């Protein structure tokens, strides 16, 4: 083994070390030592990620591998059908795809760590916070470096634990720990499906090594793949089913419908957490999972079109929800849900590099926006209601500039990062081989509408916070440089980040990212070709949607004033019948069930003895009551269950032998 080539395996070890040190000795450290320690360890990981990136980039055989020990026992039938043991090894692998992810995680992670040194200043749990953050980085790195699904699953659950701990970080508020629990449990439901997907994959491929599975598609002909022409095509049933299970797992982690309700609540955590976990990294794990399993999804067109549709619906849902929010972080949270939907559209269309492209650009500008919000919240004394802000342009000049950059980037204004990735998504779904012609165009149209809405609500966010006059009562002041420097770096990335994936018409080899990921996450076969003028029209439309969104939003705000408490309910509703219709649909189709489920989950937490049962569905409350009637404490009531159980089972056997 070449030590240099296995250096990358230290990446998760360093922050894990930091976690251990901070958990054990953190209490004795003086601020800001824990923050500096944690940040520097993450920075070292970032250096390792860069080294790994440099090693991987020129490689054609794009895999660095580290194997440690026989991890999971597994049985495989050999040629004679005899079960033989073939243990799965606990291994890390670095390829182009995971290299990109490690750069994002450690890079953004480092910036957010630094920001948090300032943001968490004076907090009682300062060292605890950095311990959790380090733990999160370690788990996230395990997730992306894993070379097999079970190892990935460890990281997958680990980030869930970290997210749970961090959402509930400010535990004095009961709401926070409820939100933490809800997030973990909803995630776990997705995880259960991921596990089932793993079983199915093992049964189909006799291995759980991701790279073996992906490469097996080159040699093994999977039966029953109908040719992809029109309408919905299906791969072999176990493959489709496994892909669907993986999709559900991914949907839980990435807050896609119907498992999306937890993410907005998760904003209860400290803002750096929202930026790091619930915008930049953890929530993109679902997208990563689909891209990582590209072999499976590329050969499961049915599941892939599901991915696209779920993504599209989530994108609309998130965008519509974001319009009406008044909490500075909730707007961004719903925006994240919406953008994650965008990424799902990309990976569902079979253009895996595009999904990762958007993961990267989104990480830049969304982390930037969240950290700016943090800076704003910090400045105005903890106020989070945008109606109590405004006019912060002069008072927080730095924050204002970077926020504007972030807003324009996410809105998709040329030449900022968001423009390129969004355009890549729209054009890839337009030409996608999956889902047939209709789906492709329909989702493209939805994407365009979402782009319009995104620009609209983000402009609203920006102008309510920074334009006009200050409506609150605090004395805003600019944050310290430990907080503003990360903002500048992220802003710079948001400006230039898009150039790693320039559109095709600019030249053959200008798209660096697609070429880079060609081996690790190749596109699915069968994208349509569109002519240059078609591509230009698509780009023009996307740009028009973004600009239109901003202008529309400006017009509404100019007309209605910044105090838009009843913005969507009354004025906007009166102004546009069409929007009113969407609003109602949103209420009926999305908000009500989402609210219902979240209420049930909250009921589970708050209702003392009856807790929990209500969590699952309305009817289970009665089931709970009948359970306690059943468990009445009387011996004879228990014995009758035994007798009846026996009688029914024996009766069943007797009847069966009759037949």
């Amino acid at each position, binding site marked *: 083994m070449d030590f240099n080539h296995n250096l990358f395996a230290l990446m998760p070890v360093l922050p894990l070390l930091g976690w251990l040190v901070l958990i054990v000795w953190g209490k004795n450290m003086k601020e800001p030592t824990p923050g500096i320690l944690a940040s520097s360890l993450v920075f070292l990981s970032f250096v390792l990620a860069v080294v790994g990136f440099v090693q991987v980039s020129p490689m054609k055989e794009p895999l660095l591998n580290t194997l440690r020990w026989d991890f999971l026992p597994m049985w495989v039938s050999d040629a004679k059908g005899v079960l033989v043991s073939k243990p799965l090894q606990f291994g890390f692998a670095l390829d182009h795809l995971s290299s990109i992810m490690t750069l994002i995680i450690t890079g953004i992670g480092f910036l957010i760590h630094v920001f948090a040194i300032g943001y968490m200043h004076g907090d009682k749990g300062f060292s605890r916070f950095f311990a959790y953050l380090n733990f999160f980085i370690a788990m996230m790195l395990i997730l992306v470096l894993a070379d097999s699904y079970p190892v990935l699953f460890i990281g997958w659950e680990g980030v869930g634990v970290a997210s749970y701990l961090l959402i509930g970080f400010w535990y004095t508020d009961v709401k926070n720990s409820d939100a933490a629990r809800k997030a973990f449990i909803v995630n776990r439901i997705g995880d259960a499906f991921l596990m089932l997907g793993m079983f199915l994959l093992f049964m189909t491929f006799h291995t759980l090594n991701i790279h073996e599975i992906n490469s097996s598609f080159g040699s093994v002909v999977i039966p029953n793949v109908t040719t992809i022409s029109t309408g919905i095509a299906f791969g072999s049933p176990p493959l489709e089913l496994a892909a669907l299970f993986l999709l559900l797992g991914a949907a839980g982690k990435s807050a896609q419908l119907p498992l999306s309700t937890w993410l907005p609540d998760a904003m209860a955590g400290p803002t750096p957490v929202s930026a790091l976990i619930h915008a930049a990294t953890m929530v993109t794990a679902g997208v990563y999972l689909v891209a990582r399993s590209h072999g499976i999804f590329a050969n499961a067109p049915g599941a892939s079109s599901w991915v696209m549709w779920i993504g599209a619906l989530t994108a609309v849902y998130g965008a519509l929800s974001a319009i009406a929010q008044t909490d500075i972080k909730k707007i961004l949270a719903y925006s994240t849900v919406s953008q994650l939907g965008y990424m799902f559209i990309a990976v569902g269309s079979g253009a895996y590099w595009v999904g990762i492209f958007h993961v990267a650009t989104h990480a830049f500008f969304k982390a930037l926006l969240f950290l700016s919000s943090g800076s704003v919240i910090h400045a105005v004394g903890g106020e989070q209601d945008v109606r109590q802000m405004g006019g912060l342009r002069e008072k927080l000049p730095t924050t204002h500039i970077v926020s504007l950059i972030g807003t324009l980037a996410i809105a998709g204004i040329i030449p900022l990062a968001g423009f390129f990735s969004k355009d890549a998504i729209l054009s890839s779904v337009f030409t996608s081989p999956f889902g047939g012609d209709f789906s492709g165009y329909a989702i493209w149209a939805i994407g365009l509408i979402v782009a319009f809405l995104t620009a609209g609500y983000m402009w609203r966010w920006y102008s309510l916070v920074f334009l006009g006059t200050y409506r609150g009562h605090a004395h805003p002041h600019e944050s310290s440089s430990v907080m503003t420097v990360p903002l500048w770096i992220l802003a710079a990335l948001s400006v230039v980040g898009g150039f790693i994936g320039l559109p095709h018409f600019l030249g053959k080899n200008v798209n660096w990212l697609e070429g880079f990921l060609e081996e690790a996450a190749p596109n699915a076969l069968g994208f349509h070709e569109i002519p240059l003028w078609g591509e230009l029209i698509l780009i023009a439309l996307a740009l028009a949607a973004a600009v239109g969104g901003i202008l529309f939003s400006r017009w509404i705000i100019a007309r209605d004033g910044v105090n838009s408490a009843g913005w969507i309910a009354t004025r906007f509703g009166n102004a546009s019948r069409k929007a009113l219709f969407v609003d109602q649909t949103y209420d009926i189709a999305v908000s009500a069930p989402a609210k219902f489920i979240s209420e049930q989950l909250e009921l589970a937490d708050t209702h003392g003895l009856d807790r929990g049962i209500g969590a699952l569905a309305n009817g289970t409350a009665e089931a709970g009551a009948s359970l306690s009637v059943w468990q009445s*404490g*009387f*011996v*004879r009531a228990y*014995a009758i269950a035994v007798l009846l159980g*026996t009688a029914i089972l024996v009766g069943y056997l007797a009847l069966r032998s009759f037949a």
Partner: protein
Amino acid sequence: MVETQYYIALAAILFSIGAVGFLTRRSAIQMFLCVELMLNAANLALVAFSRAWGDLLAQSAVFIILTLAAAEVAIGLGIIVAIFKKRPTTNVDVLSSLKG
């Protein structure tokens, strides 16, 4: 000679009677008597099967089960008496504070 089936059917009936009695009696002692009845039904079945197979093992097993029943009785009556010291009733319905 009477066929084995009849013995087994008789054992089945005795077993079921014991099971019903276990549920309908409220006194711990009487419930316990019903368990003894069920054990005897099992013994009868074993003895009948022993004859059907011509195998003395089953009869030896009955001998073991008899001992087992005796041990169970020692413990069971011990528990009943111990509880009776504090609560002068063998009514099991009184013992229903643990529930839910």
